[in-house]
């Protein structure tokens, strides 16, 4: 199996040299094999989003290296790195262009990593592809190809963003608490869609979540972060047998603190 993602000792400090200086990631290293689906947990401010953003190239890291599918992407800008990545964000507003139609959003995603030319943006043939893809969501969106995305609900948008992230098979799918802004029922539905898309396309994926149960149930690996470091990296049989109590216990043992997030306990 090939190594799909390799993060090699990355560091990131925000507002360095000011009173707001914040070490957000402090020497993170791990790698993912092709087909790995890792869930990432940790308290507020642990550095989970920062790690995903570092991989996506939202800003350059201070030091360390990032490889995707064997390519060194450390110096690539965000839009150039996009050809490797599918991304879904916490805020349902972030992943789509609201003033554009569903089909236009999907067409833009289908051309991820390609040059934008002067040919028509949505062809007849792809329209049919999008229709059948939307049908698999089972949200009735297949009849609304020309509706503006701004008219859709948060859950519908996240579902479309998931499709958009996978239309062009990405080397890595990044999901940053992409169900956190949804009501529990919708969140469960979107999670189910995520699982299906990841399985159907054999994607390598990273999913940040605050929900320990979700982190245990989904994926074949689990990473726990604390204060900008990876404090737990579980895979294989060990991951399968994991319970919420185990995780809490492990967290206390490794960090020497009680788990900060009540939300995580309750859910």
């Amino acid at each position, binding site marked *: 199996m090939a190594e799909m993602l390799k993060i090699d000792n990355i560091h990131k400090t925000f507002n360095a040299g000011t009173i707001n200086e914040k070490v957000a990631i402090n020497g993170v290293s791990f790698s993912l094999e092709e087909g790995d689906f890792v869930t990432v947990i940790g308290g507020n401010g642990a550095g989970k989003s920062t790690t995903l953003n570092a991989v996506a190239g939202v800003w350059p890291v201070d030091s360390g290296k990032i490889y995707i599918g064997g390519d060194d992407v450390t110096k690539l800008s965000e839009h150039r790195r996009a050809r490797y990545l599918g991304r879904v964000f916490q805020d349902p507003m972030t992943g789509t262009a609201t003033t554009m139609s569903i089909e236009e959003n999907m067409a*833009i995603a289908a051309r991820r990593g390609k040059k934008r030319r002067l040919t028509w943006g949505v062809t007849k043939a792809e329209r049919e592809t999008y229709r059948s893809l939307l049908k698999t969501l089972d949200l009735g969106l297949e009849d609304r190809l020309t509706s503006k995305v701004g008219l859709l609900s948060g859950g519908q948008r996240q579902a479309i963003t998931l499709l958009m992230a996978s239309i062009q098979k990405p080397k890595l799918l990044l999901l940053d608490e992409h169900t956190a802004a949804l009501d529990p029922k919708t969140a469960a539905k979107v999670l189910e869609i995520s699982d299906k898309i990841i399985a159907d396309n054999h994607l390598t994926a990273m999913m940040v979540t605050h929900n320990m149960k979700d982190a245990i149930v989904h994926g074949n690996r689990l990473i726990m972060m604390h204060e900008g470091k990876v404090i737990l990296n579980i895979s294989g049989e060990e991951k399968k047998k994991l319970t919420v109590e185990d995780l809490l216990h492990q967290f206390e043992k490794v960090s020497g603190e009680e788990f900060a997030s009540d939300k995580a306990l309750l859910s």
Partner: protein
Amino acid sequence: MAILMFLDPMALVRSMPGAVAQGLIWGIMALGVYITYRLLDFADLTVDGSLATGGAVAVMLIRNGVNPWVSLLVAFLAGMLAGFVTGLLHTALGIPGILASILTQISLYSINLNIMGRSNQAVSVDKYNLVVSLRYISESAKVRIFATCILFCLAIILLLYWYFGTEQGQAIRATGCNPQMARAQGISTNFHIVIALMLSNGLVGLSGALYAQFQGAADVNIGRGAIVIGLASVIIGEVLFSKLCEGKRFAFAYTLLSVIAGAIIYYIVINVVLWLKLPSDDLKLFSAIVVALFLALPYLKGKYMKKEKKSNG
């Protein structure tokens, strides 16, 4: 009431063809403003400079024996260059958009003076075979000038409709709507900001060149406040026609048409104001108030509706 006795209704009627022609020509500039203000979400004040640049370039070329049609093309390119500078100041040097555009606008004032050698230059329709001219308006050639203006507007709308439906045009719209999404989809937001600014100012330059021919002169001050007229056209068009455009099959083309219609309505209103013998010195003040009102309208409407909903619920 007494004042109305001094007003000649026929004078108003006579002024209308001129107003409509002016609206059609400035409507092209308004389309440029629509691209930056609405599609790119970029307050581009380059317009005030690039409009005059278009006029200056066209007039000087024509005076030097260049075909008036060719001068339009060069004016378009000159406008694009102005947009390119604003785009570079913003994307490559990180200067905030509005400030970058003001810097270009100010420097264009000097550049325009240099192009013309002085603050204004005339081109006579008697000496040159101009594309459009005010002089034709009252004569039999009236049909020709309207046909020319209308064809120009329709051709540009058609081209814009096509362009913003292409991959590149969609990338510009995505950049304007949600830059974070655009980058996540591999779109270089910087690149597309620059080309949108170039296209927009190219249209503005073209409009300036047409207007200079129409007036028979180019003037460095012609663009002063042009952005306000552009915004007024966009917003008047939206307020009056957006309900008609929504959900239609060629909605975007209708929206572009409504921008031109907005410009025509703007000039009709201005003509009425002039006809009422209101002092023309106050025209800019009046335009600004009209734009402020129209800009505030959707906001106030939203606020009022929210309150109403709350009190109902």
